[in-house]
């Protein structure tokens, strides 16, 4: 049984008509109802549980190259019409006349969640938090602090536009993470592991939770022996999984059509050119069911897709939303996303990953005489116009004589996107993905990144050791 529509179709039609009443080429209504809940266990105490609810609608009107936008938490017809009129204010010429909007049947997409978070007993969630704490502490007495967090969100939205799109989705996301602090002679070190998916409570199996707890604890304990990282240009082996953030930052953002069309990307005008090592095939894929960046439809109602961005080193395409694709007379690639009804959609990534190669992961390390092995990467940042990026290593080791040796203290890597893509000289077969949060122009959306173990011939390591 599907839930009742957030707003009736006849009301949506009238709101779209009102939005275009002063002229305008395109109008859209986005109605959203999101419930979230979070719980945090810190030092074995359940801190405040929190629940939240946000409901509202955003209306946009496009006139030529200008977009007008307004949002409201008032979902009555009166509230929606007021937002439509505010958004229509950009249609300054006025006198658009009456344009009749007739929507077809609502296209409703089901959730990927087997167990809705709202149906789970809160006591059960807390049991899970405590269990993770037990497991983490059992890794050793050096673990002095454990923080376990659980958050879930159920997001129902309805999107309709003047071109006949009329769709709704029901997105459920669950996220669990463990942070451990270990104390040793040289101070404190932290370890972190997430479990997340566009799924319900079913992803939080005992095994998954235990693995995260153990992983975070071991990472913190291992880092107690960490030495300052070297500084300078060194070969880097990225372990499968979290290294995908490098490609998200190093080139993903530069392949978003909004930056490209403003000629504010180093990748503008380079389709068909060799921009990376032939070992690089980069894909953005919203269809990976259940992954953190999974979408049935994007926030403009367009079904998500698997888009090949770079194939064997050659740039094949960019990522597109409605507005940018219209300018180029092509179809959207299903990358129009927004943080909430209070935000305008823009081009965003979904699950971005590098296809696996043919090398053996252990062999790649064995064939690296000296360098840095990055077991986990943290967040990063890029300037799309110059391609310069930076990201943090949250778990890294030295490679000496083909062996992973001393753990290194946290530090940043820095590089240039177009440059680093050419430095990929080996890609293994042990592909995996990691959940993340991507921020752009003040909006955050969940994304996945992935890759197999791989080597870069040289990256600048921002450590303090000579």
């Amino acid at each position: 049984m599907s839930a009742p529509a957030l707003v009736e179709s006849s009301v949506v039609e009238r709101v779209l008509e009102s939005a275009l009443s002063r002229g305008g080429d395109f109008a859209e209504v986005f109605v959203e109802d999101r419930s979230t809940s979070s719980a945090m266990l810190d030092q074995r105490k359940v801190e405040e549980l929190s629940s939240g609810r946000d409901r509202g609608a955003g209306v946009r009107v496009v006139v030529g190259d200008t977009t007008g936008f307004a949002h409201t938490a008032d979902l009555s017809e009166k509230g929606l019409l007021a937002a439509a009129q505010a958004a229509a204010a950009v249609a300054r010429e006025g006198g658009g006349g009456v344009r009749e909007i007739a929507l077809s049947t609502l296209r409703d997409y089901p959730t990927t969640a087997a167990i809705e978070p709202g149906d789970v007993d809160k006591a059960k969630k807390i049991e899970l938090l405590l269990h993770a704490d037990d497991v983490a502490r059992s890794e050793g007495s050096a673990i002095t602090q454990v923080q376990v967090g659980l958050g879930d969100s159920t997001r129902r939205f309805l999107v309709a536009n003047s071109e006949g799109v009329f769709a709704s989705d029901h997105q459920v996301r669950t996220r669990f993470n463990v942070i451990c602090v270990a104390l040793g002679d040289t101070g404190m070190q932290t370890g972190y592991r997430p479990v997340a998916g566009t799924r319900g409570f079913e992803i939080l199996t005992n095994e998954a939770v235990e693995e995260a707890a153990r992983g975070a604890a071991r990472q913190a304990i291992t880092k107690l022996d960490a030495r300052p990282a070297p500084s300078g240009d060194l070969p880097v082996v990225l372990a499968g999984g979290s290294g995908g953030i490098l490609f998200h930052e190093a080139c993903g953002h530069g392949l978003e059509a909004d930056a490209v069309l403003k000629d504010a990307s180093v990748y503008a005008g380079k389709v068909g050119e060799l921009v990376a090592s032939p070992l690089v095939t980069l894909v953005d894929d919203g269809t990976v069911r259940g992954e953190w960046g999974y979408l049935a439809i994007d926030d403009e109602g367009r079904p998500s897709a698997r888009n090949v961005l770079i194939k064997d080193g050659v740039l094949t395409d960019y990522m597109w939303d409605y507005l940018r694709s219209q300018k180029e007379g092509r179809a959207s690639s299903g990358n129009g996303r927004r943080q909430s009804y209070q935000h305008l959609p823009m081009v965003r990534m979904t699950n971005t990953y590098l296809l696996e190669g043919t090398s053996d992961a252990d062999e790649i390390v064995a064939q690296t005489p000296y360098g840095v092995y990055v077991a986990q990467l943290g967040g990063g940042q890029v300037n799309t116009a110059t391609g310069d990026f930076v990201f943090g290593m949250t778990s890294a080791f030295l490679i000496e004589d083909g062996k992973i040796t001393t753990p290194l203290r946290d530090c940043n890597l820095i590089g240039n996107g177009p440059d680093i893509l050419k430095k990929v000289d080996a890609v293994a077969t042990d592909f995996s993905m990691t959940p993340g949060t991507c921020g752009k122009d003040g909006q955050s959306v969940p994304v996945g990144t992935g890759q197999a173990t791989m080597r870069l011939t040289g990256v600048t390591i921002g450590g303090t050791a000579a």
Partner: protein
Amino acid sequence: MSELLEQALQILERAKGDEHIEVYVSSGTDTEVQAYQGEIEKLSTASSSGIGIRVLTNTPTGARVGSAWVGSLDENAIAETLEQARDNVRFASEDEFIAFATPDGVSSVPMELRTDEVATTPLDDKISWAIELERLVRSGDTRIRQVDSANYSDYDVAAAVASTNGVRATYARSGAHISVEAIASDGKSDQTGWGLSVARSPRDLDLAKASAEAIRRSTRRLGATKPASMKCTVVFDPRSAATLFSVLGSALSGESVVRGRSFFADRVGEEVAMAGFTLLDDPTDARHFAASQFDGEGLACRRNVLIENGVLKGFVYDTVAGRRAGTVSTGSAVRGGISGSPTAGCRALQAVPGEYSQKELLAKVGNGLYVESMSGVHSGVNPISGDFSVGVNGLMIRDGELAEPVREITVASTLQRMLLDILYVGSDVEWLPGASAGQSLAIANIAVSGT
């Protein structure tokens, strides 16, 4: 009485038995204009409101707390939210330190942080400023190849906090902001630079300053190269220094300290910084854009000295962190809007200015690196261990003057060392949006990683 406070008080009346309730309610409007190629690219106007409710029940050995929020002031939504918060209480652990703030007799410093001008300035003026800002940058230098976005934004918000403990506080704040990102090109490669201006009233925004800043920052980086790795003195510009102070601020939060997540823990009274360095959190200084009369729990904000002449004096606390530390709130609860619960944090940091202008300070330094933008701060700085490693752009300092531009480098040290290695604090204070003001800051012995 403000309408919001009245609304909050009505909810308090629903407290049952020995239940305690705290309500935070806010309402505001905002406008955003983005200009591109002489036209409006985006125009967004919105008003939003919401409420965050916390419910606390006392237990034999302490208290439990639960919370819920909703992005609406609709009566049904509020009733549902109160029920959710009550339900959440049942699952929280008992904690002897959990409590709501109690009025502490400190009166707030009167300040006017809101002006009607955000509401009364015609939308057409706001639009014309965004368009003019873009034009100034495009026409200001032939090397400007593109203006990615030229933005105007403003807000006008009011909020109230009230609790069954007797807290009654109302806030009102307005602000306007312009920002522009320029892309400069020398035909071979591109460089970018941001310019901005912030004010409480839109009428006080400085288009000339913001455009000149974007042009200067982008063009002077043209031809940047990657230098060899070295150890040298680094001069952080006011914006970068403000970021640095904010990072220090998170380690000076009493919350981090009582949880053993700060490298400052147990060091009060020790010399932690260069003798001339004084850092304070002062939301009662109206020059700071983050100034506020009340904190996130509704207690009066006050001036807190954190580091004085190099000696660690103390931390900022909210009610709960203060109790854990065996002290009281310093009026330093911060909360992330309706959905966030209060926690201890710095709100309006500033370092006491030194005697040198930036020019004098560069002359004193002689040779080194001048940093004018940092990236990867959220991933490369660890307030627990103090490890510091960020990507930077900037210029070399040679013979006391700014020289050739450099890029794709990192600077690294530990926050502990950096504080002790401070050489000079500039007199060129810049009031910026965010939790800290900044001024030029010279720090010795920093590892610069290049080729």
